């Protein structure tokens, strides 16, 4: 099993439109319901953001280790796990947003995809493809453009992430 750490480094995909971080990216934009019959996680990556205007080529251009940055309410909508697993399939390390849909946040943590919530995130704080570092323990995102403080990952969520997922955590408990 891969080793999990609280400090992650990678290239940042800034999801923006007209200079603003995109908010309300719902689960149909992340992973469209036309592909829900897919059950093999390794085949889900190709559909990531396939329905997000301007980012249809994300799956082809994303590299393992990349991170995603978005506005408020990322992952609202349905409870589908595919919308998390498609990022795992591509090797996307983390999703950073002003806020998350409640179900999405849980699904991500349960699958050990770290999510970092930064309510104070400004629209143009970071540049597209900037190399950044996140510290999940302190909730910090920093890069050449600057540094911003979000919510630290703590308690159960942190334990589940470090264990590699919800069932993995339960087995080790």
């Amino acid at each position: 099993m891969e080793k999990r750490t609280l400090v992650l480094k990678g290239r940042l995909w800034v999801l923006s439109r007209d200079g603003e971080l995109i908010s309300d990216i719902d689960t149909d934009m992340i992973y469209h319901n036309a592909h829900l019959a897919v059950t093999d996680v390794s085949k889900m990556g190709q559909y990531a953001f396939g329905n997000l205007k301007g980012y249809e080529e994300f799956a082809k251009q994303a590299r393992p280790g990349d991170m995603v940055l978005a506005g408020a309410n990322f992952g609202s909508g349905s409870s589908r796990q595919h919308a998390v697993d498609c990022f795992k399939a591509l090797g996307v390390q983390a999703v950073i947003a002003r806020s998350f849909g409640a179900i999405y946040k849980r699904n991500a943590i349960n699958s050990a995809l770290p999510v970092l919530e930064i309510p104070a995130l400004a629209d143009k704080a970071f540049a597209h493809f900037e190399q950044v570092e996140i510290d999940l323990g302190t909730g910090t995102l920093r890069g050449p453009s600057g540094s911003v403080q979000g919510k630290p990952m703590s308690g159960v969520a942190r334990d589940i992430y470090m264990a590699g997922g919800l069932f993995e955590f339960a087995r080790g408990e």
Partner: protein
Amino acid sequence: MAYDGYQMEAEMGGTMMEKILSSHGAGDCRPGDEVWIGIDNRTARDFAGASVVANVEKNGGAKPIADPSRTFFTFDCNVPANTIPYADNQQTIRNFARKHGLKVFDVDAGIGSHVVIENRLARPGSTTVGTDSHLNIMGAIGAFGQGMGDVDIAFSFVSGRVWFEVPPSVKLVLEGIPGAGAEAKDVALTILGRFNHHELLGKSVEVYGEWVERATLSDFITIASQGTEMGAVTILFPPNRNVLDYFGMTEAEAVYADPDATYEAEYRVSIDGLKPLVAAPPNPNNVHPVSQYSDVRIDGAFIGSCTNGTLDDMRLAAKLLKGRKVAPGVMLKVVPATRSVWRTMMKEGLIDDIFEAGGIISNPGCGGCASGQIGMTGRGEVQVSTSNRNFTGKQGAGDTYLAGVGTAVASAVLGRIAGVGELEGV
């Protein structure tokens, strides 16, 4: 232990959410705490149910179900299945349920969340999880309900518990009494229109006010079922006399907030003299008076869904349709929430009233929101729907206007978007 817990609550003052979580193993908890809670009802529907089964089989060991008597499947998305993948998933679930002695509310039963309430499996103060993103409808009975992904639900099947981040609670006071012709749906639309910038995102919303004290369980179901569209974790209604009577409970047996509970914010919203509203495409927050759209011609109307598929909704629809006719060229689709609602409709002659008016009535289920149970809209088709989502593509490729039952009936009869007051003799 129970006594100590009570002492702690009494000292600290908890919101409804905090007290329900506390009573299910979370101890003394505050917003932001991540806690483990015991789940009274663990459910999965035909959507995602097969993935729940796969997760349980992979991770659950030889005796994977913690408590078969508290674990249920509810089929409501595609009932009876009209695609092979759904049929396959339902059969996978049936086989698994037979093997482990689990109850399946099958394709005849209706909307899972309503079935769970109707069978009194969920009661005020209880906890329920499932794969339905509208399961926070349990807020209608002053109970905890959450839709979750298949990993979480599988975990609840196996362990009887889930982890949960205690949400901040906010208080919403509805001031006044809605005007004639306005329904609970119009109250829900008022809230959707007012909080359209994520103010309620991630919050547990407790609702109070003069109207809340006298509203019906169906009213609460209509509003709580739209908590998801409001971005809220849940919309909690403190059980009033109507709700307590439904469950044969006393106030002492239900859960209410302490007088000194702490809220992150308090909002006051007037519903006094409220008139019928619609949410125009493309989202449920795009709320305006019905009168603003009176020149929009419609092709169809849908009455049903977890939002407006109760017996009260059906009675209202039938009463308004009796002796009237749906406009030529307009299709009125009616889908009761559950089998029991359907039976009462038959016995009370409601089906006759709807039939004679020109409507079609399907078997119970999620209806217009699911993949084609009672058809979908084509490009350019305009529909008035009592359901909860009008996002592009949700109920087909056409344009969906969300509204109450009265508006849906009036629109179907007049062939254009209309409030119930525009019907002759109403």
